[in-house]
């Protein structure tokens, strides 16, 4: 039952001739235990202010479109239950992601990051690994490669938003791109691994990471971009001039 009243503080971008960019506060009727934060945003749009612009599609942490900052922290509102972030009394603040271009209000444009992923030729589908960390149930050895699945990375860009290095430096490849690069290197398929290693072996690649690990902390999909960046560094350090030159 939507019997609680939530004061929602939501970031609104400027509309020509109407208002400057600022937080706006609206009151929304919510069910603290049943509603997700995305439900709350939708209620604000449907019942209070239909001019609110926000992204959403799958509502179950698969498409990565709805990522926002809730009380300053990057989350997927579709799988964040309201009770996790709201005590029933205070205001709830929702803002768009950092370090990504904002289209309007809470909606951001993933274009530049996706362009980098496209340049890497990061495939969308992987094969099942025998590593129990990645598969919920152990896969028998002869079944390795028997199943395909979408990569864990949703391309939601929460990691990019959380990364302070990305804040200061837009040229930094960023945790999403670097984690994707590591996935290609870890599971080569037909890809040119040398090309990928060259792409990340730059001042704006793995070497610009400052080991803060905020990316891994906010990733809703368990990708661990921070750990993958460290893995890339180790691989780069163990490249001999001969193997680097071979570019295989």
């Amino acid at each position, binding site marked *: 039952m939507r019997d609680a009243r939530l004061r929602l503080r939501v970031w609104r971008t400027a509309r020509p001739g109407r208002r400057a960019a600022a937080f706006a506060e609206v009151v929304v009727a919510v069910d603290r235990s049943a509603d997700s934060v995305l439900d709350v945003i939708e209620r604000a749009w449907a019942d209070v202010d239909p001019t609110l612009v926000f992204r959403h599609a799958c509502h179950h942490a698969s498409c990565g479109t709805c990522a926002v900052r809730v009380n300053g922290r990057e989350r997927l509102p579709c799988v964040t239950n309201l009770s996790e972030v709201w005590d029933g009394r205070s205001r709830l603040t929702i803002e768009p992601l950092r370090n990504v271009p904002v289209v309007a209000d809470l909606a951001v444009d993933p274009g530049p990051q996706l362009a980098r992923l496209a340049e890497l030729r990061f495939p969308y589908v992987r094969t099942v690994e025998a590593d129990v960390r990645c598969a919920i149930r152990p896969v028998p050895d002869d079944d390795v490669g028997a199943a395909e699945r979408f990569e864990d990375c949703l391309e939601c860009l929460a990691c990019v938003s959380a990364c302070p290095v990305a804040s200061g430096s837009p040229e930094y490849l960023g945790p999403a791109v670097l984690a994707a690069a590591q996935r290609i290197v870890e599971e080569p398929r037909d890809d040119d691994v040398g090309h990928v290693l060259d792409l990340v072996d730059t001042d704006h690649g793995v070497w610009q990471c400052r080991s*803060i690990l905020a990316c*891994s902390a906010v990733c809703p999909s368990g990708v661990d971009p921070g750990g993958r960046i460290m893995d890339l560094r180790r691989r780069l350090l163990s490249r001999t001039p001969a193997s680097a030159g071979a570019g295989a």
Partner: protein
Amino acid sequence: MSAHVSTRLAPPGLFRRLAYWLEPRWRDPGWWAFALNRLTGHILVLYLVLHLIVLSQLADGPAGWDRLLEVFGSRPFLVADTLLIAAVVFHGLNGLRVAALTFGMGARHSTALIAAVIAASAALTALAAWAILT
């Protein structure tokens, strides 16, 4: 050509990006450790410069030097010394943690290690404070 984004808003300027550093809301412990590492790093660089400037006073001879040392022996400066030691100790210990991370160690226990670094820094600083101030 897609018209899907024709009104992309201007990226935040330098001021706004710097302002992110001062946001007091949620931050991962790893972020605080990094910010503190940066801060102590700046402090240490500044200290190094000051130290060299102070040492250059040696050129003025023993009398001037002795006066400086008296000032440096005063209470406020001893407290500043203790704070400096805190900065050195934290920067060093945290630096070890970051180096370990680069070699793939400690990522999973990041928060615990940061807590350990802070605890060890506090302990060593307390020891130094006792030695210097008493």
